[in-house]
């Protein structure tokens, strides 16, 4: 930035110098201003963790909001750690009690208490009160007070209520024990409660700020959380300006002003980084890493995240009805070559649809189907396949390297004798559509928002998950195990259920096959010591942001 102003001044004279000086940021102050160029800030146009369900939101929300239980986000195995709660304990199978961190202040100066926590998980915040539903049906954004509510309240969009319902399917209530103690009480035995309390979507909001906002949208445009940075300005698709929250409980934030600017084009993000316009850029594709690192002042950091790329099968159509065809495809994917060639070895082939941060629930000995073309050919032969076309629906690089990956896999499938046809689609509706042609194979990715298989295999592939909801796949035994995995509190039983579910969905009656772990890369100034996170959040807290040498 300084460099740009200097040259501009030389170029156009003193008037221009004055104009440029007016915008002078950063290094004249005690703390720097930092600009992060992102492909998008949030997809849904609002800063509400229960509305924004995309990966992109996760990286900005961690600067604004915090959960009661957090993660050591820069560690590979992502262990849980105290967040806005200093400790927690199980009272029984249905109840977790948490002690709140004292002296935590919201961006509006209020001290966080149990009332804020109770409100954050209330039906009013979730938009699930009958009054809210009635107001929503009438197209209103506010509901009128009734006996059940003290004041007039907000009406969040219907999808907020739906997402909250999915995030907390069995939550009965959050109870205030005293000002600094709360209890989460489930309607059924729930081994995942601690995980859900730590998940994206469980961030604590200021009750007063929410209730005083003019509407849900007003709050979602300028939300009040406890994070190290507070929202100053948010223009969707353009810029999110955050400012240091000086009363942050975790120490003085190291950045004065943190700006996330939308720069949709990769080349423009790279140009902006190399010209000093931006300090960080996100979503650097693997083929641009060398370009960034060709400049000694910059580097690329990043790696695998808690998201896996999948190939998903529709078992109800054409040759895909035969499990042997699906099995053959899972064995014909050369995952290691994909990781090596397309990702430069910067990600990895995971052990199926699970992550190491599942901890006790992680099945270390589980593996994705081995790459074995002879076995794949044999399976095709045994299936009695007659050459009927098999369509693979692909979006144009919605996922990084998506098209190249599809092309590599299609070629492998052809080599085992399958008549593969790639169909390029423009959006997800066209991917899911089963009226305009046979739906057989598609791409997808699955995340695990908390460290338990319920977060991924249950949420996405069981009865209420997308794959069964759109009618691509179902399996009776698998569905029975879903319930056991969700409600059993016996670790060994849960591990056994999870293992059997993987056997069914990845091997016997393939619903999907994991291709590789997704990875995300950031370009950054080399003089800034900063670590990326497998949870996709960008952390600008004191312990994760240090400028090692004076900036030029």
């Amino acid at each position: 930035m300084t460099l740009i102003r200097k040259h501009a001044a030389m170029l156009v004279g003193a008037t221009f110098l004055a104009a440029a000086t007016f915008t002078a940021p950063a290094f004249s102050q005690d703390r720097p201003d930092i600009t992060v160029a992102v492909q998008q800030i949030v997809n849904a146009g609002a800063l509400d963790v229960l509305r924004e369900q995309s990966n992109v939101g996760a990286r900005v929300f961690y600067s604004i909001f915090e959960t009661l239980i957090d993660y050591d986000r820069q560690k590979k195995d992502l262990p849980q750690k105290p967040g806005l709660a200093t400790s927690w304990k199980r009272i029984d199978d249905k109840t977790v009690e948490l002690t709140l961190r004292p002296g935590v202040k919201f961006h509006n100066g209020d001290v966080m208490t149990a009332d804020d926590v109770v409100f954050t998980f209330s039906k009013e915040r979730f938009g699930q009160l009958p009054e809210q539903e009635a107001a929503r049906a009438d197209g209103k954004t506010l509901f009128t007070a009734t006996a059940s509510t003290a004041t007039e309240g907000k009406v969040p969009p219907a999808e907020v209520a739906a997402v909250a319902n999915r995030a907390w399917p069995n939550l009965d209530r959050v109870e205030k024990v005293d000002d600094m103690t709360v209890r989460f009480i489930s309607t059924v035995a729930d081994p995942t409660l601690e995980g859900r309390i730590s998940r994206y979507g469980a961030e604590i909001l200021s009750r007063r700020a929410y209730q005083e906002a003019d509407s849900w949208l007003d709050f979602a445009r300028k939300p009040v959380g406890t994070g190290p940075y507070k929202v100053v300005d948010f223009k969707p698709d353009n810029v999110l300006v955050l400012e240091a929250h000086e009363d942050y409980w975790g120490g003085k934030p190291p950045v004065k002003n943190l700006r996330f600017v939308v720069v949709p084009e990769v080349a423009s993000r790279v140009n902006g980084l190399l010209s000093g316009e931006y300090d960080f850029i996100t979503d650097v594709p693997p083929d641009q890493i060398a370009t960034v690192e060709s400049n000694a002042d910059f580097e690329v950091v990043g790696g695998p995240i808690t998201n896996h790329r999948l190939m998903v099968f529709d078992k109800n159509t054409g040759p895909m009805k035969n499990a042997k065809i699906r099995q053959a495809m899972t064995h014909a994917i050369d995952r290691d070559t994909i990781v090596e060639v397309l990702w430069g070895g910067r990600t990895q082939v995971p052990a199926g649809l699970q992550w190491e941060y599942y901890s006790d629930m992680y099945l270390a000995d589980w593996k994705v189907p081995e790459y074995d073309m002879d076995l794949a050919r044999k399976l095709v032969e045994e299936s009695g396949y007659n050459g009927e076309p098999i369509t693979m629906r692909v979006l144009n690089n919605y996922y990084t390297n998506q098209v190249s990956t599809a092309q590599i896999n299609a070629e492998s499938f052809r080599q085992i004798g399958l008549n593969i046809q790639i169909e390029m689609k423009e959006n997800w509706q066209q991917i899911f559509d089963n009226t305009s042609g046979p739906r057989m194979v598609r791409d997808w990715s699955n995340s695990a928002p908390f460290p338990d298989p319920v977060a991924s295999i249950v949420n996405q592939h069981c009865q209420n998950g997308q794959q069964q909801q759109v009618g691509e796949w179902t399996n009776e035994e698998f569905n029975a195990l879903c319930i056991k995995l969700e409600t059993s509190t016996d670790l060994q039983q849960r591990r056994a259920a999870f293992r059997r579910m993987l056997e069914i969905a990845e091997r016997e009656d393939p619903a999907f096959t994991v291709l590789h772990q997704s990875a995300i890369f950031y370009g950054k100034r080399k003089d800034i010591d900063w670590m990326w996170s497998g949870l996709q959040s960008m952390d600008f807290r004191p312990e994760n942001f240090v400028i090692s040498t004076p900036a030029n």
Partner: protein
Amino acid sequence: MLRYALLRIARALVTVSLIVSIAFVILRLSGDPAIIILGPEAPPEAFKAFRHAWGLDQPIWVQYLKYFNAIFHGDLGNSMRDGRSALQVVGERIPLTLAITIPALFLKVLIGLPAGVYAALHRNTAIDRLIMTLSVFGFTVPSFVLGLVLAMIFAVKLGWLPSGGSDTWLHAVLPIFTMGMIGAAVIARFTRSAMLEVLGQPYIRTASAKGLVWRDVVVAHALPNAAIPTLTIVGFMVGSLVAGAVVVESVFSWPGVGRLLVTAVANRDLAVVQVILLFVGFTMVLANLIVDLLYGWVDPRLRTKRLQAGT
């Protein structure tokens, strides 16, 4: 004249209605905003709730009738992304787009017009060939390529200008320059062709033969007669002021209407797309009207023809 103008406006309204209808059908049939806006990993019940809230679960003809009924009641709808009025969403982007498209238009005319005239008056000289070479370059190089090359030179290599964004007036320089250069190339080429055609006309020889100095021949006789095709091109450029910077805005991360259009189409945010189309249609109609009036002003023969035709 009034009848002529009203006829043009009526015709334009039909055209805009057709565009809006076609866009409605195509956008509604080719993508589900629920999945696109909420993301493919959102729970199925969120998709259902979203579709119900926005009436997307109703038959398309019901949605269409409701949409047009609302338009006739002055309600252009809300953005499905955040529930704000689509008019407000688009309205706040228009000044930003005009901030680059209007200066770019001036640049196009100020460079393209003299360059075209000069090239025509110095036909087959080195300067003519240079101008035409640059013009062909401007014609053929896509704006995103020129934009990225300019950013590489002036932002990355020289560090003189920002590579993208909209924080200061310096951020506008490269987008304006990119659009200006490409547009100037187009105008120069059309102006040169028009001038060459006019310069070969008998009345130019007559004007010269009767003893007028060459400068007066060019200014009084050649330029007005060559202005019609150039006016047409400039009219198109005026018409595309609102949404004619889609690519350049994307390359330079300029948060104007063009980038909004890309996002809105990708998200199937119909109300926002329709408001942009209405603005574009309105601007085009206005630009065409102005150009038509200017035709009559620069060429009295057209004015007389219209009067004789009673339109």
